[in-house]
């Protein structure tokens, strides 16, 4: 369903049509960057299903991998990706959609 037609039903985790999406976030390691990214994901209408932060010391570039589930049908992962890309501590955001689907199956 597109963002501007019809109603916007709330999706519960596990409900048909609610499939997790995996994102890979490459971050600078600046103070608070992981918290900033995770907070944005939740505030923008996504459930955080899983998260893994690559070990590293402050200041080291590392990767945060998250599985996220949209809270309603109006949320588009491409928009979330762009919102994450606005964060100054994120170098790159990649949608690993296939991996998430494979794991969910």
């Amino acid at each position, binding site marked *: 369903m*597109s*963002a*501007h*037609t*019809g*109603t916007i039903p709330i999706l519960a985790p596990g409900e048909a049509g609610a499939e997790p999406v995996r994102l890979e976030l490459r971050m600078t390691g600046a*103070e*608070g960057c992981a*918290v*900033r990214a995770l*907070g944005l994901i939740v*505030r923008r209408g996504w459930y955080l299903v899983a998260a893994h932060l690559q070990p590293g010391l402050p200041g080291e570039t590392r990767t945060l991998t998250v599985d996220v589930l949209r809270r309603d049908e*109006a949320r*588009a992962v*491409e*928009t979330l990706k*762009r*919102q994450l*890309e*606005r*964060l*100054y*501590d994120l170098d790159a955001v990649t949608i690993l959609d296939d991996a998430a689907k494979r794991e969910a199956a």
Partner: protein
Amino acid sequence: MTAQAAITPQTVRGADLVVAALEAQGVDTVFGYPGGAIMPVYDALAHSSLRHILTRHEQGAAIAAEGYARSSGRVGVCLATSGPGATTLVTGLADAFLDSVPVVALTGQVPSALMGTDAFQEVDIFGVTLPVVKHSFVVRRTEDVLDIIAEAFEIAADGRPGPVLVDLPKDLMAAIVEHPPAPVRPQPAIRAGACSDMAAAETLIREARKPLLYIGGGVQMGGAVRAVRAFAQRTQIPSVATLKGLGAIPTDDANFLGMLGMHGLKAANLAVQTCDLLINVGARFDDRATGHLESFAPHARVIHMDVDTAEISKLRRADVGLSGGLAANLFALDPGPLDITDWRAETATLKSEHAWDYAAPGTGVYAPKLLKDLSERLDEPMVISCDVGQHQMWVAQHCRFRRPQSHLSSSGLGTMGFGLPAAIGAQLADPDATVVCVSGDGSIMMNIQELATLNRYQIPVKIVLLDNSMLGMVRQWQDLFFDGNRSEVDLWDNPDFVELARAFRVEAFRVERRDEVDPGLDRLLAAQGPALMHVKIDPAENVWPLVPPGRSNAQMLEDAL
């Protein structure tokens, strides 16, 4: 606090670096309030070239910095101590975040060793503000101060502007370090978008028979006013504006239909509902503008232009997205001759058929007429800063604006108490401007203490206080949508605002009848210093039109149910 004895010509305190960093950014004015953890910075400030404006509450400082930034286009700066000082900045930061205003907030913090121990006046302001800042820093090494503050200014102004917070632990501000070299930073570049498609946009415009420009706040913030006016003039495409987009096209332009949305003008809303192409320039399909999103501009294809790629297709799918700088895109966009003569005639008819009738019955003050007359009296440069409520919508509907910097309004957050401190910031940014704060009896009390700031610095802001002894907008909604159940909206016990202003040593007088308005405006605008005109208005007056919540913009109420 006194300067420490160990300072040598080659060394400097962290606090001195803060001041040096602000001076290096060309800052001339900062708004703030001192306290324990920020004392080293205030010590350094006293010996600097910076003008510090002592507001009487930190929220006033944050909003004054916003007003300064909104009217000047430069980054506004506010300063507060740790704990409660920092938390009272938050509303101003959230306001700046939602309206994309470049502000740098500097907050004192408890000493590094005490951070995380629940120390006196400790709060994790970095964590508290994460949702409402564009970026934030905690200084962890004194040597990093220059670089961090330079980066904070760069981020605040880059691309889509916004607030940036820098938290300054007290020990690092008092620490003495070798004077580090000034940072060398590349000029920020507007990043090219990934979804720009100029040719496709030009095709859509050529194919359209009923194109409409939908202008948002991004036009002013992106320095694209000249570009959007040139595009509108070149193509003769009619336009509407959001609350924050007002003034980008002058109100009196023949092709401008007014503000759209919940309290938009009828011609503007009807044009949106009729158009076949909506060219969104720096707007974000905010719910106040769109009403029921699914029925907004139902026949239109959409071109969405925004410096922030994340806004494109966020709420309404764009047929073509043009990311990147608005001015560059508008100047480059050249669809050639358009066949829109009939559409222009149709919108002109809408505009004339739904023109406002200012002939109200009775002898009481009619606020829409007063505000229209006020704006027509003001020569440029002028600024009207308003608060939030009915008067805010009347300003948007009835005042004439010739540039967007003339209209300061808390558009996204809707912050009651915004008007007076924002006016202070605007007046200090442009001493030659006539700055008027239009407020209500509910809003003015939210930051009434800033009358002291007006008096302290003799800032010549003129206040028009529209007093209906009511939280008018809430009362209107209760009447319309809650069966008239008036719950906690009656402000019968307001203070005597004229006496209150005089207690702050601000000139004040009262207007109660329609025939007193003109002489009242004469007196107000002739005052040399700050002045307040207290105007009694009808508590039963409503703001029309009104699109009920969750309804289409085509379903405007125009009178009582």
